[in-house]
């Protein structure tokens, strides 16, 4: 049955059920990818922004959001992608940070990206398993564009770090 709503907060709440295809513990809302929801004459417009320019998950995310809302009975649904303002890891919610950590991915540093990166400095990354700060970067680039590879020198486990951008 076709449903209509003019409550954007309801849509946002529902979108928590749509997960990032590459990090399935994180919803697209907690990821900060959903930027804006608008309802015009019954049509739902969802604005999303990519995490990385080349993130191959973006097409899937757009399709998943559309399919999910259609599946909930809302129609028509339009997904719009914008580049500005630029996505930053600061938009990952507290919920999202916790979900990342529980999943074994160290959440992004909260310190500003710009300064450290321009100065070519290293950041201290805590092991998501044993909290040790005695960790070492194995590679600046990991299994997806948004992650780096680290290892913990205390518990000896390798782990992913969600890079701060």
């Amino acid at each position, binding site marked *: 049955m076709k449903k209509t709503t003019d409550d954007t907060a309801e849509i946002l709440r529902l979108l928590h059920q749509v997960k990032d295809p590459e990090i399935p513990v994180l919803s697209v809302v907690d990821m900060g990818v959903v930027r804006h929801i608008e309802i015009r004459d019954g049509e739902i417009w969802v604005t999303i922004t*990519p995490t*990385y*320019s*080349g*993130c*191959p998950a973006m097409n899937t995310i757009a399709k998943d959001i559309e399919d999910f809302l259609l599946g909930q009975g809302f129609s028509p649904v339009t997904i719009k992608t*914008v*580049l*500005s*303002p*630029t*996505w*930053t890891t600061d938009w990952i919610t507290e919920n999202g940070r916790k979900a990342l950590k529980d999943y074994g991915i160290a959440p992004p540093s909260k310190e500003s*990206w710009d300064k450290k*990166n*321009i100065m*070519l400095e290293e950041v201290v990354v805590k092991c998501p398993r044993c909290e040790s700060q005695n960790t070492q970067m*194995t*590679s*600046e*680039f*990991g*299994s997806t*564009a948004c992650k780096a*590879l680290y290892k913990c020198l205390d518990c000896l486990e390798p782990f992913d770090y969600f*890079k701060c*951008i």
Partner: protein
Amino acid sequence: MTKTQQLHNYTLRQGDNCLILGQRLAEWCGHGPVLEQDIALTNISLDLIGQTRNYYQYAAQMNEEGKNEDDLAFLRDSLDYYNLLLVEQPNGDFAHTITRQYLFDVFHFHFLSQLCSSKDEQLSAIAHKSIKEVGYHRRWSSQWVLRLGDGTNESHSRMQVALDSLWKYAFEALEPDDLDLQMSEAGLGVDLDKIKKVCRQEVLDHLKKATLQIPQHGSGQVGGKTGKHTEHLGYILAEMQYMQRTYPGAKW
């Protein structure tokens, strides 16, 4: 040329740099010296191809012949590509790839930092998005230049060979052509004079730190921005465009 054509061409050539280097790096897929660096090379490739799409999609909106982003990538010949000569150079050994990457990354980073303040909203948005990624590329390649340059005798000598062979293309990016000047004057593009000094200095200081000798020959061979390429570009396009040329309009 109309103002829209100028903006179209300028946008296109930023995309061309990203696409050709992205394609080159993708050739490393499965051949990296160690798994982590294989992944790094292809991650950087992916970032660059994503940036290419942003530029090409924008150029396509302005394209008078109604070409889309795929047409721009797959149906242009080498004379209609405007990328820098540096980015089309072959991968060679890991030292060549790192040297090429480093020289491009330093330019790319400073270029984008200026493009962020372009009066054109979309170019500025693409620059803001890209620079965060390129910051990581620059950090990665500059660390490798140090590690290999100031490394073993073998790594040092390979880096020196790579630097000597790529040096003539090192600073083409910083030599403005007519389009650069027009776009910078209009406040839409980057004033290359503003970044020339900082780029050169950063490269020279870093190479010195990596114990490498600065080659004595020239470093500003031009041609790429006006479609005059080295022999290598044709081979990249032949491989990259094969499917679309053989099966026009093929989709998956």
